[in-house]
């Protein structure tokens, strides 16, 4: 059961029309988005036309796809040829891609309708969706708080039930952390499971596209649609995509849940710790075995992660220079000035900070001490996880150390902001799949998420465990008040 699955079934059978589904969706967006600023662009006419086309397809006797008539939004760093792809940056303010990302074509092939593009921290660099050309996105549970980031827009669009599913990207937690802050399901697939073609790169060796949904079932269906091999992405895995919606129902008794004590130590808020611990207990009740695991190099993960992400970013973002496309400074004196001023004016402060730190880390004389060392730590962390998965099937841990923090709280303290990724970066460094699941509310009524991390390409097991947990709880069914407007 899931909203996406139900909608698609109704449209496929003809019980609902895609046009009616879209109509309702646009009404919700129009009444709710002003309060939270989740979307950066949407085109009602195009969305309605797409929905009508799907209805016509059905009327013509064609069988509709797995996402028949389902309205979705995608993060604005995923390329679409039918609308701008701004990455939340002035430097791409009016940029329209010449092609659709692989995942966008997959969605369209499955007869989903892409209603619009969702907000993000500029170039996916941030954990709060405060750093965007389009202004910050707000948390629908409390608009004084951030929705998390960098995929805050797609998370909020689902949390406030404007749409039932969306796509974000996750470089160090950018899907899972906002999912946890907003009380929805967020899935980061294993590295290589989903093609990155058409995702504007931040940290190429870490980036992965994944879905937000209100249930594990819907997340599984979304993954089923967007996963698969793509010749255009050399890092995409050439392995068949399992039918995840079937895999959900695998029995889980006897499965081993690994727990690392160090993940429950200092820095973790009590509310979060208690909720995650009680979720782990539920898994034990469901017949899972809880096993202790060690992650000896855990404490170096965040430093290693930021070093690698920033180094790659410094190179990935070099192409935004005002020469070929995007923002160009007016009246530059010469070539060097055109580069410096276009980039100086086009990028926001956080992006510039990361480019400069990444550039520094790759500079001759510093490379070995920073970038190369970070790569070595990354290898050690992978070894840690290989060892851990000898003892368990999935690992349980928090998503973020706290619930949603206040707007502005960490803007002036980048280090504090970076530390909010402390539990999520492992999966990116080690190429694991991981899911964030709603598991409770704190004293202020803000959602809490917990995280299950599976082995590379272990999505089937991961989703079955998550699904089983979901069947024992109703946290995922709760929506903020905004969702009722």
């Amino acid at each position, binding site marked *: 059961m899931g909203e996406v699955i139900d909608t698609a079934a109704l449209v496929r059978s003809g019980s609902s029309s895609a046009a009616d589904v879209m109509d309702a969706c646009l009404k919700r967006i129009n009444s709710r988005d002003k309060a939270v600023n989740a979307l950066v662009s949407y085109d009602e006419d195009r969305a309605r036309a797409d929905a009508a086309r799907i209805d016509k397809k059905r009327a013509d006797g064609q069988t509709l796809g797995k996402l028949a008539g389902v309205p979705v939004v995608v993060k604005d760093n*995923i*390329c679409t040829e039918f609308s701008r*792809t701004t*990455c939340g940056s002035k430097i*791409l303010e009016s*940029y329209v*891609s*010449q*092609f659709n*990302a692989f995942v966008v074509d997959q969605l369209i092939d499955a007869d989903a309708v892409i209603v619009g593009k969702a907000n993000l921290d500029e170039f996916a660099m941030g954990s709060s969706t405060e750093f965007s050309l389009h202004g910050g996105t707000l948390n629908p549970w409390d608009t004084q708080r951030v929705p998390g980031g960098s995929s805050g827009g797609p998370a909020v669009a689902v949390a406030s039930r404007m749409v039932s599913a969306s796509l974000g990207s996750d470089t160090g937690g950018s899907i899972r952390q906002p999912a946890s802050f907003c009380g929805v399901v967020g899935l980061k697939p294993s590295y290589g499971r989903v093609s*990155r*073609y*058409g*995702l*504007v*790169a931040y*940290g*190429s*060796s870490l980036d992965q596209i994944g879905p937000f949904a209100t249930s594990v079932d819907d997340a599984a269906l979304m993954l089923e649609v967007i996963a698969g091999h793509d*010749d*255009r*992405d*050399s*890092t995409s895995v050439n392995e068949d995509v399992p039918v995840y919606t079937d895999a959900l129902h695998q029995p889980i008794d006897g499965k081993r849940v690994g727990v690392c004590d160090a993940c429950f130590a200092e820095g973790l808020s009590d509310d979060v710790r208690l909720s995650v611990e009680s979720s782990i207990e539920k898994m034990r009740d469901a017949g899972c075995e809880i096993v202790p695991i060690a992650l000896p190099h855990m404490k170096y993960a965040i430093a290693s992660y930021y070093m690698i992400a920033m*180094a*790659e970013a*410094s*190179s990935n973002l*070099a*192409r*935004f*220079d005002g*020469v*070929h*496309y995007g923002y160009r400074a007016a009246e530059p004196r010469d*070539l060097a000035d055109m*580069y410096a001023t276009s980039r100086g004016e086009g990028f926001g402060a956080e992006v510039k900070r990361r480019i400069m730190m990444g*550039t520094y880390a*790759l*500079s*001759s004389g510093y*490379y070995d001490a920073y*970038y190369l060392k970070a790569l070595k730590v990354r290898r050690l962390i992978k070894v840690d996880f290989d060892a851990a998965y000898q003892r368990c099937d999935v690992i349980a841990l928090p998503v973020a150390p706290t619930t949603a923090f206040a707007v502005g709280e960490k803007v002036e303290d980048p280090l504090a902001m970076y530390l909010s990724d402390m539990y999520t970066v492992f999966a990116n460094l080690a190429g694991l799949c991981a899911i964030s699941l709603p598991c409770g509310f704190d004293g202020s009524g803000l959602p809490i998420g917990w995280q299950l991390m599976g082995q590379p390409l272990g999505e089937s097991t991961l989703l079955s465990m998550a699904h089983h947990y979901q069947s024992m709880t109703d946290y995922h069914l709760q929506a903020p008040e905004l969702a009722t407007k």
Partner: protein
Amino acid sequence: MSAKQILKTRIIVGMEIHVQLRTQTKMFCGCGLSFDAPPNSHVCPVCLGHPGTLPVINKQALRFAILAGLAMNCRIASYTKWDRKNYFYPDLPKNYQVSQYDLPICGEGHFDLPSETDPQTIRIRRAHLEEDAGKNIHDTGAHTLVDLNRAGTPLLEIVTEPDIHSAADAYAFCAELHRLVTYIGISDANMQMGQMRFEPNVNVEITHREGLSKTPIAEIKNLNSFRSVKNAIDYEAQRQIAAWEANPGYELGQAANENRGWNDDRGVTEFQRTKEAAHDYRYLPDPDLVPVTISETMMKEIRTDLPELPIARRKRFVSDLQLSSKDAETIVDHRATADLFEDAIEAGGPTDMLSKQMINIWLSLANDRQTDIANLGVSAAGIAELAGITDRGDINKSAAKQIAEAMLSDKQSPRELAKHLGLVQVKDTAATQAWVQQAIDNNAPAVQDVLSNPKKAKAAVGFLRGQVMRISGGQADPKLVGELIEKLLTPKPD
């Protein structure tokens, strides 16, 4: 001061060579290669570096690089990876170039440069794959235009050790390497189109009364002819020696190494920048490309594509086929010519006559038509037969050329063509004597010269022979004609 008195100098040159590979498509995208297409007509989001695009390795380029490595006796890496070389320039859309930094596809090798007097071995340091940049066009007034057709074209960069010690050897090495890359089919290496570019690193070891000095190294950028390689090295060495004599501090390690350009019009190298000001390229492994593992099977397969290389083939032509080294060089220069030559031998053609006709007839016909010998449309069997009937004296040499030309458009065999064109050599003495007599009768002044003007006699005999050939329609046997002219015009002893 006399301490600077130079006793001996030795030029030290290492070469960097860029070779554009003749793949179907660019290094990382599906665009075709182009050299004279309208600007920006061979581009796509990938080679334009648009956000969201990703590179995919061209497997053909990989094979070509391995083939080149094998031809240069290089150690082929079993594991090779891709690195980004970061620098900003408008002709580089991503502002990084995908290249190979610490694990190049081809490691150490060597290239044996043949010479009758002074054979040498040039060690290869490495050869790696990378993508070419586009072109900035500055000659359009206030603006610089960028053409990205070339962006992403696969390049093989070959780097030698500094084992070359004269400009002439550098010339010979470049020419030999050029022949090699075209021979193994990895590049058209058209130098006018910049498909092969040379960058010599030059300095000089100077022996003087106080010991040994070395000058700073100059890298001469982007030379695109063998001649400019030779001239630039010659000039640069002399310049460095003069600079060393004039400046006390001009020593390797003290003064800066530099990049220089070659001004072909003025015949001088010109300063571009010092190496100290060189970029920090901030190399990093390209996370968008997976490292490549090269299996033994793949190596074996590629090794079978490796033809006999030009130097070895030349040697064999001289030792086994008794060709002169000059003829061997001419025939081996292009693989298609040498292949056709050997096929014709296989088809029964006489080697000696074949080698002569290959050069004097077939290559010259191809050159006249500005094409390759393989494109003339003649078969090895036809070539062999023509050489055979010439060798047997069935036709004479000038008839052979006429028949060869006819063969370009007429599918009949050389023997049939000889018949139809009336070029079968007549060996009948009586008939020939009649033609000779006619020539004598019609050319009294020439006859007069033969008989009584020793200074002009030889030329006059030649003239008469030509007349006989003309009268006979080319059928006369020139040897017999010569004998008869001599016989008929020798004053009879009374």
